[in-house]
C-alpha cells in the first residue's frame, strides 16, 4: 500500500472542516486541517498535501492570495465558495486553482472533483492522449476527433477548443484560459468566439445539440468536458 493521498482542508468554520474530514476519511485520504491563512502556509511546508480544499473567506488574509503559494508547493487547489461569487471563482481559476465547488456542497460532488483534480495532477504532462466522451473520442496525440470510430473534420480552432478541455477532462477551463490558448493573448474577453466554436462543434459531434453530452458551459465561468 502506498502512502495515502494527503488533503488539506482550509476553512475557518470547524463544523465544515469536520464534515469534510468525515467523508474524506471514509474515502481513504489523510486529512490535515487549517483555519487561517497562517496555518495553511505552515501546513503546506510540514504536511506537503497533494490537494487543498480552500475556502476563500479566511479571517487573516484573502484566500485568493494563497492560490499561487499552494501551486508552487505542488498541490492541487479546489476552491470552496459561495454560489453567487462567480467573479471570485473565475479569479481563483485564472490564478491557477484547479476547480471549484459552491456552498452548500454535496460531499459526493466534492469527492468527484477531488478525484478529477488529482488524476490531472498525477498524470501531469503525460496526460492520456486518448479521451473518451460517449461516442466521441479525442486523440490528442494524433490531433484528431472521431465519432463512432469515424473521423470528424474540425477547424483548427474547433479542435483547439476541444483539446484544451480534453487535456483536463471534468475540470473547468475558464473562458479567458481557452481564449488565450486558442486565439492568443489580447482576446481574453472575446467570449463570443467561444460561443461560435462551441455551437459549431456541437453541430458536428452531438446527437442533440440542445442536450449536450460532450461538454457543458458553467455560466459566467468557462467550459467543462463531461467525460464518460
Amino acid at each position, binding site marked *: 500500500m502506498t502512502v495515502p493521498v494527503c488533503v488539506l482542508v482550509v476553512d475557518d468554520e470547524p463544523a465544515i472542516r469536520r464534515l469534510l474530514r468525515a467523508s474524506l476519511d471514509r474515502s481513504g485520504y489523510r486529512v490535515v486541517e487549517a483555519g487561517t491563512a497562517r496555518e495553511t502556509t505552515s501546513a503546506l511546508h510540514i504536511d506537503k498535501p497533494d490537494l487543498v480544499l480552500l475556502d476563500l473567506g479566511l479571517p487573516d488574509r484573502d484566500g485568493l492570495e494563497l492560490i499561487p503559494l499552494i501551486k508552487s508547493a505542488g498541490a492541487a487547489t479546489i476552491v470552496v465558495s459561495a454560489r453567487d461569487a462567480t467573479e471570485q471563482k473565475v479569479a481563483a481559476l485564472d490564478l491557477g486553482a484547479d476547480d471549484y465547488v459552491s456552498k452548500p456542497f454535496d460531499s459526493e460532488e466534492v469527492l468527484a472533483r477531488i478525484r478529477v483534480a488529482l488524476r490531472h495532477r498525477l498524470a501531469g504532462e503525460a496526460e492520456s492522449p486518448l479521451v473518451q466522451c460517449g461516442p466521441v473520442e479525442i486523440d490528442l496525440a494524433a490531433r484528431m476527433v472521431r465519432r463512432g470510430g469515424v473521423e470528424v473534420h474540425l477547424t483548427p480552432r474547433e479542435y483547439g477548443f476541444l483539446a484544451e478541455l480534453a487535456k483536463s477532462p471534468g475540470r473547468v477551463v475558464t473562458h479567458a484560459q481557452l481564449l488565450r490558448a486558442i486565439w492568443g493573448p489580447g482576446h481574453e474577453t472575446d467570449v463570443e468566439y467561444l460561443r461560435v466554436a462551441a455551437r459549431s462543434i456541437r453541430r458536428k459531434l452531438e446527437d442533440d445539440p440542445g442536450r449536450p453530452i460532450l461538454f457543458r458551459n458553467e455560466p*459566467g465561468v468557462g467550459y467543462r468536458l463531461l467525460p464518460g
Partner: protein
Amino acid sequence: MVSNVGSPDRVARIAGLEMPRSALTGYLISLALTVLVTLAGLAIFARGNITNIGLLYLLPVLVAATRYGMRTGIVTGLACSLAYNFFFIPPTHTFTIDNPQNIITVLVLLGVAVVGSQLASKVREQALLAQASAAQNSALADFARQLTGVSTADALAQALCAEISRLLSVNAVLLRPGEDGLSVRSAAPPAPVLEMLDIAAARWCFDMGQAAGRGSDALTASEWQFYPIGGASGVLAVIGLSRSDAREPVSPAQLPLLVRLIDQAGLAMARIALTEDMAALAQARERDRLRQALLSSVSHDLRTPLTTILGTLNDMRAQGPEQEVQLAEARAEAERLHRFVDNLLDMARIESGALHQKVEPIDLSEAVASALQDMKRPLAGRQVDVAIASDLPLALVDPQLFHHCLINLIDNAAKHGGSAGGIEVVARQADGAIVLSVADRGPGIPPGEALRIFNTFIRLEGSDRTGGSGLGLAIVKGFAEAMGLSVSAENREDGPGAVFAIRFGPEKMKEVPTA
C-alpha cells in the same frame, strides 16, 4: 452707473449716509461771515477809500455756495450786496446806488453765488456717489464674506433675509421647495403673514423664474414682491419683500443692490445644493457598501450551518426502514430550507439594488442545457422537451443571473406543472426579438392573475401543496428586469398549463459572428 443709482439723496439714504448739513446753521454761519467781512471792510475802509473792497464779499458767498448749496449762496450773495451797498457804496448808509458801476458788483456777487454753488454741488454729488457705491460694495462684500461661512441652505436663507431686511429696511421672506412643496424657510422679521394670494405669487415666481407680486407684471394684487433666486441649473428659491407701511417694497434706486444680493445668494445656494448632492451621493454609496457587506455576511452565516446540516444528513446511513424515512424527510426539508435561503438572499439583492452585473454574450441553448443539468434532481422522471433554433443570435446578459432565472422558471414548472406533466423549453426569434418560454401542463394561471403572479410572495390558489416560498417568479422578474429583459405569463392555448416567457429586445441580442 450714475443714472442707475439715482439721485444722491436716495443713494445717501441707501448707504445710510445723511449730508452733514442743516439749513439753519448754514444761514447763520454765512450771515456771521458776512458780518465779519463787513467789519473787516469797515476797518480797512477807515484807513482810506478803497473801491475794490467789494471783492472781500466773494469769500462769504463762495463759502456759503460751496458748503451749503445754491439757496444759501444766493441768500448770502444778496446779503453781501446789501451790506456792500449800505456800508461802502456812496451814498453810504442808504440802499440807493448812484454809480451804475456798482450795480455790476452786486450782479457779480450773485453770479458767483449761483455758479459756485452749482460747481460745489456737482463735486459733492460725485463724492456722495463714490461714498454710496463704496458703501454698497462694502455691504455686498460683507454679505459675500458671510456667505462663505454658510454651509446649509437654511443658514443661507437666514443670512439673506436678515441682510436684505437690514440694507433695504423691508420685511423679507424666503421660500424654498421641500417635501411639503414651496414653503417659508426663513423670514426677517420672523413670522411673516403670507396670504393665499402671496403664496400664489411666490409659486408663480418660482415656476416662471420671473419677478411676481406687487410692482411686477404678474399677480400684482399681492402685498409682497417676489424675486427668483437661482443659478444656471434653474430657480432654487424665491425671496419676497414687503413694507409694513404698505409702500412700494423696493425703490428703483435700491433695485441694483437687491439684484446683486440675490445674484450672490443664488451662487451660494447653487454651491450648497451641489455640496448637499455630493454628500447624499457619498451617503448612498456608503449605504450600498454596508448593504453589500451585510448581505454577504448574512449569506455566509446562513449557508455555513446549512452546508453542515445538508452534508451531515447526506453522510448519515439509516439503521432500519423507519430511520430511512426520517432521514429522507430531514434531507428534503433541509433542501427546501436551502432553496428558501437562496431565494431570500436573491430577493434581498434585487430589492437592495445590489446586483452587480457582468454582461457577456451567451448561447441560449447552452444556458438552457446547463440549467437543466443543475435541475436534474428536482426534474427526476419528468419529460423535458427543448426546442431552441440553432441559428439564434447570442443574448447579452449576466450569465449567472440568467442561469438563476432559468433555474427558477424550470423549478416553477416542476412544482406547479402537474404531477407528471411534461415541460417545454422553447426559444425562437420573432419580430426582431428573441422569446424564450417555459411551458408546463399544470392547472395554469387563474384569470386576471397573469400580472400578479410575478409579485413577491404570491402563491395562487390550489398550488400551495407543492410548496415553495412564492419567491421564485419574483426573482425571475427581478433579475430579468435588472438585465433589461421583460417577462410575461399566460395560459397555454392548447389545453391547461402555463407559459412563462422572457423576451430579449434587439439591444440584448448579438448576431453570431462568422468563425
